[in-house]
């Protein structure tokens, strides 16, 4: 009995072994399935994870390209700058380290702690910059105390060096650490915190060319983030250099001529649109912007009523004043409203309805034809012409010069200026256009505003009789070895189609402005080159002249546009002196100095010093202000009975 039970049980247990074997097989099958899942199905995923586990990328900044003037003179280059960085993984006592650093170097502890805190989330092997642009003395102190400063590193980075100081600061612009906002914007994905980026001017506009390609080292790290070896290294590619159209000599003379005065000047080649000088005065020190700007200097920039940080040549919009009369004249000639001999009697004022519009010369100019009207800047002549033309015809002439639109210079934030029309006013203000306003527009006042670039472009187009070139600042892009990569092409962006005769009459009027007795721009005259120009005064506010001269901000702007030589024009200039008063003379004298420099530069140096020539007509300081004094608040609102 017991035997039988034993045998039965034995047989049963053998059967059970088979069941257990089956269960074991299933368990192992699960393991295999899981391995299949990990190693076959998701292998790529895990392989990528293991790679990112072990590989770290530390970028090495590329040296930025240089900026040169048209002759190859270095304007902005690089010099090495040292910064103090910390590698978190090597630091045991952060607080003690910070204290020691601030004791040794006299650097602001809170500032360093803040920078550290901000980058704390970065990988432990990544150097965090605690202080940039430290002095060589600091570098030495750190090197001497290396053992006491575990984890502290001196990093060398190229920084901008402004060879010519503040020259062309608005044009060149400055660089600074890339901001958080910029980091998140499209196209800047490759930038890392602490990288430098062009913030302004050419530095910003040509960032892509100048920046170069950052290199980097791919490091293998272990589980603790310790660097084991460099897996691969990509050397940074130096950024391309930008050769500007600027002539450093002309630029410098132009800036000097402004002295303390605020304003802008643009000098342009009339045959291709190259900008030889691009001035916005006063300038600023671009080198201060890449580091920590001293608070007092920054406050000084902000408080200066001459607005040194504003790029006046690009974004300043000024009523062109009498410099706009060429446009009105061309519109009149084109529409056959006037010809060479059309004469208007200027009594010193012009009546329109119940309003009186004064000429700047209250005594009147008497019988005035176009030539005299331009030369002496007679307002009444243009009031009459403007009234006949109507605002839209004037606007059409202005628009054919591409006024009212940005001209496409390389810099960002170019303003468009404004050429008003009846339709524009209706749309903008919902009000109809008054004829009195046309009179203001015909002498470049009212709603008309232009940028200095547009003024220069207008003058160039008059000089070359109709071709509008895109004003540009970049002549060519060269690589680090000086090889040309890109050459700027002369680009015609439009044509101002007026008859040759029209241009001749206007240009001769401009020649008379500078060279004939009674001309308003005689200060710009050169003894050896025929200069043609036009003065202008633009009202800032409508006040009596006595009140204006006492308050800087209320004074009128002085304008002057010119081209030369008259026979075969080469360059066009527009000068705006903010609150310069005295008619166009303040601007004209600057233009004269710029022209002198330009033409001197073209010839072998002269022995004789060039003296500013006194006008033989004794009228070198024509005060156009006389006009504004009376033109104040032209009562045009009630002018509805006409039409």
């Amino acid at each position: 009995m017991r035997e039988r039970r034993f045998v039965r049980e034995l047989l049963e247990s053998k059967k059970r072994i088979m069941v257990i074997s089956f269960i074991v097989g299933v368990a192992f099958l699960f393991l295999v399935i899981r391995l299949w899942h990990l190693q076959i199905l998701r292998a790529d995923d895990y392989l990528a994870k293991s790679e990112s586990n072990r590989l770290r990328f530390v970028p090495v900044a590329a040296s930025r390209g240089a900026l040169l003037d048209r002759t190859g003179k270095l304007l902005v280059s690089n010099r090495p700058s040292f910064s103090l960085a910390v590698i978190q993984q090597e630091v045991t006592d952060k607080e003690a380290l910070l204290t020691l650093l601030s004791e040794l170097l006299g650097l602001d502890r809170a500032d360093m702690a803040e920078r550290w805190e901000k980058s704390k989330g970065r990988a432990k092997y990544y150097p965090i910059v605690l202080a940039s642009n430290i002095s060589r003395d600091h570098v030495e102190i750190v090197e001497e105390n290396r053992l006491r400063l575990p984890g502290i590193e001196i990093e060398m980075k190229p920084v901008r060096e402004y060879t010519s100081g503040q020259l062309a600061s608005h044009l060149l612009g400055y660089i600074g650490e890339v901001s958080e906002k910029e980091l998140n914007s499209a196209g800047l994905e490759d930038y890392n915190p602490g990288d430098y980026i062009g913030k302004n001017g050419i530095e910003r506009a040509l960032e892509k060319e100048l920046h170069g390609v950052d290199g980097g080292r791919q490091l293998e790290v272990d589980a603790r983030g310790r660097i084991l070896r460099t897996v691969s290294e990509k050397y940074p590619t130096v950024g391309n250099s930008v050769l500007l159209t600027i002539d450093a000599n002309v630029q410098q003379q132009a800036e000097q001529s402004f002295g303390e005065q605020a304003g802008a000047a643009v000098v342009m080649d009339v045959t291709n649109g190259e900008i030889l000088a691009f001035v916005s005065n006063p300038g600023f020190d671009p080198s201060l912007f890449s580091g920590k700007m001293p608070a007092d200097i920054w406050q000084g920039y902000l408080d200066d009523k001459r607005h040194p940080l504003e790029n006046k040549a690009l974004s300043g919009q000024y009523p062109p004043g009498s410099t706009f009369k060429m446009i009105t004249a061309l519109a009149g000639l084109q529409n056959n409203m006037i010809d060479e001999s059309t004469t208007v009697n200027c009594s010193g004022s012009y009546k329109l309805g119940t309003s009186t519009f004064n000429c700047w010369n209250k005594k009147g100019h008497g019988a005035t034809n176009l030539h005299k009207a331009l030369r002496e800047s007679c307002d009444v002549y243009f009031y009459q012409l403007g009234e006949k033309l109507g605002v839209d015809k004037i606007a059409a002439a202005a628009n054919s010069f591409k006024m009212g639109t940005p001209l496409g210079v390389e810099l960002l934030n170019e303003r468009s200026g404004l050429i008003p029309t009846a339709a524009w006013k209706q749309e903008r203000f919902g009000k109809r256009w008054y004829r009195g306003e046309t009179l203001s527009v015909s002498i470049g006042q009212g709603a008309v505003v232009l940028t200095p670039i547009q003024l220069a472009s207008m003058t160039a187009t008059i000089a070359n009789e109709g071709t509008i070139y895109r004003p540009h600042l970049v002549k060519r892009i060269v690589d680090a070895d000086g090889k040309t990569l890109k050459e700027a092409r002369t680009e015609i962006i439009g044509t101002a189609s007026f008859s040759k005769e029209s241009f001749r009459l206007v240009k001769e009027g401009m020649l008379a402005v500078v060279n004939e007795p009674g001309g308003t721009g005689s200060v710009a005259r050169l003894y050896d080159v025929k200069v043609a120009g036009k003065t202008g005064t633009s009202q800032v506010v409508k006040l009596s002249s006595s009140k204006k001269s006492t308050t800087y901000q209320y004074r009128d702007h002085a304008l002057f546009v010119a081209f030369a030589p008259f026979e075969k024009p080469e360059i066009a200039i527009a000068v705006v002196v903010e609150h310069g008063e005295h008619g166009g003379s303040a601007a004209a004298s600057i233009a004269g100095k710029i022209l002198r420099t330009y033409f001197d530069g073209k010839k072998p140096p002269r022995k004789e010093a060039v003296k500013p020539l006194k006008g033989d007509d004794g009228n070198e300081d024509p005060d156009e202000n006389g006009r504004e004094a009376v033109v104040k608040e032209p009562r045009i609102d009630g002018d509805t009975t006409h039409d």
Partner: protein
Amino acid sequence: MIDRRLLTNIDWVLAGLVITVCLLGIMNIYSATAAYKIVGTSYYIKQFYWLLAGIIISLVVCSLDYHIFEDLSYWFYGAIILLLLAVLAVGKSSMGATRWLNLGFFNIQPSELMKIVIIVTFARFFNNFQTVGGLAVREVLVPLGLLALPAALIMKQPDLGTATLIVLIALSMTMYVGLRWSAIVTFICVTIPMVWVGWAFLLRPYQKNRVLDFLNPERSRLGSGYHIIQSKIAVGSGGFSGKGFIKGTQSQLRFLPEQHTDFAFSVFAEEWGFIGCLLLIILYLSLVLWGLNIARRCNDRFGALLAVGVTAMLFWHIVINMGMVIGLFPVVGVPLPFFSYGGTSMITSMVGIGLLQSISMRRFMF
């Protein structure tokens, strides 16, 4: 002493499988510790010595008639219980747990020995216990007590892994003997509240964390969940054919925890890929099935129980370790037999293999 006839009956399949896995293990340890700064003897050399020691012990064990263990089993049991108590009293601590007993010249881990002793004890108990149609609840109360005492002592060290294994080994043997359905249902009804009590009162915070981390590895990326994530990355990145010997980045750069011991399989999987893993799994599966085969061929009930117990021990070690490495189980400190570095594991496993060998060789004697 050794019967000449026995020697001719040596189970070469069993021996061959074990030696193959051991050699693969040594090779893998060589790679896993290649990046270590070694002072003194290298790990793979030491492991080789342990293998030799293991073979000798296994030969000694297999030369003995395993029935002497039947007679001695309760003595062993009592002795180990005393040692476990001693460990709790004067044991040597490492990593928050007290598992070692310093015998002056030798550190022993009584909990490790308990794995073998529970097998022998249960085999003896069930051998003397006649049952029809499976064990009833009443009939398992004694083995339950025999199990609960050492399990509780080991849990107290705390060593969740070993305690779990002892329970699983005992459970496997009980299932082999057979349980009545009524007993199974009763166990389930009792176990669930006990698990809750265990979770709430017995598990240490780090043990709870491990379980929670297993359930959600993202819970603590740098805590113990880190181990699971890094191990899965290592295994997965091995792909089909692996990264090559000593070329595993996860292991060579030490992203893996305890990579020469508990996570040795992870290193292997990274460097040899799916193909290598498949080979190793086939070897282990063969070993386990062969162990069961020994049990099946054994006509002696005590021998069969012993073989099932030893095979269960190997099986659970393999499944739990591999399952942990590939993210199927929580991280518990269970080594992979013959493969992970470690003398204790090697000796215990080899004693088990000696028993299997002994049973296999003597299968014709009964």
